[in-house]
């Protein structure tokens, strides 16, 4: 096969995959309303994707904020603008680091759990059993998990941002002795609603992408141990690449 033919083949198969994922998304969205009418299932999934990711999100948020504090203080001190540390960290976290890092952590923690859970249900005939009992697995299994992830992501991002800013404050105020009033007043005055809107929109888009990739990979996993493993790996890799690509597109659109 010539190089151009191989390239054409690769583009074609990628387009087919994008088409399949889009159709799957439409099918899931079509079942979103029935899923919303079962709050118990949905709350369970928000708990699974959200609450169970809290510890890792908070821990990472704290350390990212503290690193931002150290690096930011060092950088700003060169220009004599240490007092702007709070602003720099808050904007960086709210607009960029918060949504992106939360999404990457979400893909690693909740995304893999979703993909492997659904993949294992496929491998052990549980999804087929539902179909045979005239229960649509997309409605009962996929839609609540997708919605749970989609709802959990902005909440986790908000928590990551808050803990991150607290981490920066620990370094800036407690360690480096920036006056508390200066730190917080500058931060509050400089962060605008549009910054928060950018962060929220990013986290919603990432939430949709990461949740969709996880449930898609799980649902169409090969029904074998190896297939479930591969689906889990693909979930992390595809989610990470998609998050970073989408982040570039969204950042360019917001600037």
């Amino acid at each position, binding site marked *: 096969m010539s190089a151009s033919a191989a390239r054409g083949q690769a583009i074609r198969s990628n387009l087919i995959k994008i088409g399949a994922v889009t159709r799957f998304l439409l099918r899931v969205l079509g079942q979103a309303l029935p899923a919303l009418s079962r709050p118990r299932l949905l709350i369970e999934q928000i708990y699974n994707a959200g609450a169970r990711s809290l510890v890792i999100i908070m821990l990472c948020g704290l350390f990212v904020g503290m690193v931002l504090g150290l690096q930011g203080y060092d950088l700003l001190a060169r220009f004599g603008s240490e007092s702007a540390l709070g602003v720099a960290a808050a904007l960086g976290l709210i607009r960029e680091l918060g949504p992106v890092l939360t999404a990457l952590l979400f893909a690693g923690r909740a995304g893999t759990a979703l993909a492997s859970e659904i993949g294992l249900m496929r491998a052990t005939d549980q999804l087929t059993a539902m179909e045979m*009992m*005239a*229960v649509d697995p997309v409605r009962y299994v996929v839609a609540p998990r997708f919605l749970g992830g989609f709802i959990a992501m902005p909440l986790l991002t908000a928590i990551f941002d808050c803990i991150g800013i607290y981490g920066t404050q620990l370094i800036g105020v407690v360690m480096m002795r920036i006056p508390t009033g200066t730190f917080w007043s500058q931060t509050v005055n400089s962060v605008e609603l549009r910054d928060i809107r950018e962060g929220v929109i990013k986290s919603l888009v990432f939430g949709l992408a990461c949740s969709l990739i996880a449930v898609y990979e799980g649902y169409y996993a090969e029904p074998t141990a190896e297939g479930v493993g591969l689906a889990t790996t693909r979930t992390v890799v595809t989610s990470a690449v998609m998050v970073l690509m989408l982040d570039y597109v969204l950042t360019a659109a917001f600037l």
Partner: protein
Amino acid sequence: MSDRTEVSSQPPLIDVQDVHYAVGTHSVFSGLNVRVAVGKITAIMGPSGTGKTTLLRLIMGQIVPQSGRISVFGQDVGALKRRELYALRQRVGLLFQNGALLTGMSVFDNVAFPVREHARLPEPVLRKLVLMKLQAVGLRGAAELMPSELSGGMARRVALARAIVMDPEVLLYDEPFVGLDPISKGVILRLIQSLNKTLHITSVLVSHDVQEISAIADHTYLLSSGVVVADGNPAELKQDASAVVHQFMTGAPDGPVPFHYPAADYNAQLLER
């Protein structure tokens, strides 16, 4: 072969007519004919890999044949829309080989699952219904256990309770005896029989356990190479003179179904450098 199948004057409940089905280039069925009579226990037997489970998937409309017709309750399964297919599946129970219990919920919730999805029953009524079904399979005491705490035989009995909870008209059993100890086998055998006799559930068993099937089946189809090679009641099959039937019924290791997978000449392969 199926032409001589006239076990009932009523129209068959499941009618598989001249079905051809292939996966890629591998042909699974090439002109399969099977008829399941109302209220009877029909067995589908055959060596491993003859597509017995595939036949169940075709009957349930999970896959569609390339040609031929499968009708269940007089409806062409291949032509049904998803909604119609789901309506039909509510009248048919399927017992999976491994039980396929939902691992995230208890035995009770597993059995209650189809009812909760399809009917709005008050919780006390649902509870009584589920306990009655669990009592029927002897596992009322295990209602609060999780599927991971059950033995293989118990899991299959729970799956059986789940399959009958919607009071289906037909029950399809996929290899119900595989991997069970003799006691569990006996229990499942008795359950299949009693469900058929007391609830008048038409039963289709896919299996290769000659002894068990011979004990309970009203009519048996023997599949090989994608077609029905023999059918009749167990006594008739035992009398069948054809080599394929004889090999299967007696469990002879070699015969029309060869012991060796097709391979190059043995000596030539050993001596080649």
